């Protein structure tokens, strides 16, 4: 019998050892009958526990970028996602400050711990995107930043004396915030996603969804999905990267029904039916962020953090990064130095 490494998306604690290039789907071990010819228990399955222990020791990196016009609740949503003050909003940035004249890239790192597992979370904010009168090419600084992280990683990889664990600053996930107009996408949304879906995992979300009734939400989501499809925009989870039928079924449902997630964020708690819940208080009721009948925040959270976190990293490494690497190697027949942003922009709470 052929025993291979058992991979499961649901294991949040996966190894930080250098991941292998994407393999063909491994044929799962055929279930053994009771009268199987097993001579005894070998203990191969303990590798899961070993990997888990290792990850708990080393922790892992996760880099999430947020893109969208000013005021769509990006910072609040990220804080809500990680139940922590991890965004630019919490790091002393004054909301009363003027909108920057060009798109800035601001990366803030935090270490958060849960159940013994340490995550080095970096939130990359993009203030100024879409806020000017002329927003032509405003996605370019963002694309540049993403490619620079690939370049950094590539440089480390080709070193003769490589670090045991290459620091991973590559953007694993880009949350794109769609304004809840109820009509359709905006031209800028299309342009951004067209350009960037080829270099990074884009997860579109409908921001401030408490402005739409259930019907309006359903219609708008359908409309957005259609527009994305018609314009050839492949958001994460991309169809072509579904590994097997199980993936495809699960992801099809998410792609065709759930996404884009219509979310509401909040860092305030209120008492509802005797429980303390995260929400927004209005004269006509309290909007509960984690209540699935109110909004889809919990779906987004589960999707990004509880089920697809590892896959986001894998697709970034095995697909987007490899695409970048292949292009670089082809273009130059080698690796001439490319200027890379210094560490100046990267704040850290480490």
């Amino acid at each position, binding site marked *: 019998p052929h025993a291979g490494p058992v991979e499961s998306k649901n294991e949040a604690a996966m190894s930080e050892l250098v991941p292998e290039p994407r393999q063909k789907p491994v044929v799962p071990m055929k279930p053994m009958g009771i009268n199987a010819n097993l001579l005894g228990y070998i203990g191969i399955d303990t590798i899961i526990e070993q990997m888990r222990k290792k990850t708990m020791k080393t922790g892992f990196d996760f880099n999430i970028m947020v893109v969208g016009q000013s005021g769509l609740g990006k910072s609040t949503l990220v804080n809500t996602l990680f139940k922590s003050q991890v965004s630019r909003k919490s790091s002393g940035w004054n909301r009363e400050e003027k909108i920057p004249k060009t798109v800035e890239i601001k990366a803030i790192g935090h270490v958060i711990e849960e159940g013994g597992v340490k995550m080095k979370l970096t939130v990359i904010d993009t203030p100024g995107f879409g806020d000017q009168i*002329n927003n032509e090419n405003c996605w370019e600084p963002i694309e540049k930043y993403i490619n620079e992280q690939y370049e950094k990683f590539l440089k480390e990889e080709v070193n003769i004396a490589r670090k045991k664990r290459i620091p991973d600053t590559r953007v694993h996930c880009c949350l794109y915030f769609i304004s809840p107009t109820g009509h359709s996408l905006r031209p800028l949304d299309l342009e951004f996603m067209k350009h960037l879906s080829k270099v990074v995992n884009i997860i579109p979300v409908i921001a401030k969804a408490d402005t739409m009734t259930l019907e309006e939400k359903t219609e708008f989501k359908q409309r957005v999905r259609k527009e994305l499809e018609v314009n050839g925009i492949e958001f994460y989870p991309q169809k072509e990267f579904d590994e097997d039928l199980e993936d495809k079924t699960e992801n099809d449902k998410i792609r065709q029904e759930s996404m884009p997630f219509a979310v509401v964020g909040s860092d305030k708690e209120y008492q509802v039916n005797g429980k303390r819940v995260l929400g927004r208080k209005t004269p006509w*009721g309290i909007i509960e962020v984690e209540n699935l009948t109110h909004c889809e925040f919990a779906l987004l959270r589960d999707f990004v953090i509880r089920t697809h976190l590892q896959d986001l990293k894998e697709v970034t490494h095995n697909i987007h990064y490899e695409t970048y690497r292949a292009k670089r190697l082809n273009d130059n027949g080698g690796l001439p130095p490319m200027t890379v942003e210094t560490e100046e922009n990267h704040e850290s709470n480490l």
Partner: protein
Amino acid sequence: QFSDSAGYVGFANLPNQVHRKSVKKGFEFTLMVVGESGLGKSTLINSLFLTDLYPERYIPGAAEKIERTVQIEASTVEIEERGVKLRLTVVDTPGYGDAINSQDCFKTIIQYIDNQFERYLHDESGLNRRHIIDNRVHCCFYFISPFGHGLKPLDVEFMKALHGKVNIVPVIAKADTLTLKERERLKRRVLDEISEHGIRIYQLPDADSDEDEEFKEQTRVLKASASIPFAVIGSNQLIEVKGKKIRGRLYPWGVVEVENPEHNDFLKLRTMLVTHMQDLQEVTQDLHYENFRSERLKRTGK
């Protein structure tokens, strides 16, 4: 005087404003509506005038919007209430603020306003002046996004370019996306920025001394700094609340009532508009039109 019974818009109050002048021929009023798409403009207009001004509405997708320039679309509707006729023209500006590069998006709008002034000037200088049609824009509702932190660069540029040509009334629609605190903060921020940039928005005149107390009090309330810009919600859908059918929006967490002053400023906006239609026309005539006229005549050296 200002009944809130369902279906009553309130402009039947106009005669009181003109101090007993004859109103047999009815009133004309042109309202321009400007703002990015999806800010609730059409819903609000329909709610204000209890009509459906846009029955066959087509909303273009993003790819189509990339090609589009700003259009000017005028719809006229005749509304009659308690014997008073109003010929209302709503001028829409689809395409405004939608393009990736919105640099020139209000050129078309400025041109339209100037054209109406030009036409009036021409008619005024003509021989038959009895039946001059007044198509000048009397009021411009400028929609500010409730999703931002204040004015956007485009908002500032637009208002600076147009405050000398038309009465600008800033409005925040889809106000149900804001908590009360957020609403206050946004209003304050907008007012600060308006003042900072020297933008002149329409100012409600003080009540005349011969008006009754109720009207004076109402004017005080409207002029209170917490009112402007009005944060409103529009809807013509009827929802049953406590046995009554009221206009509102039904959410899983509650019902937002359009005509509930604790929920939003819709009633204030409606009151302001209908009780000041006359003043809006006068200011357009005495200030904006006169500015245009003197500039125009200076230029041609007449």
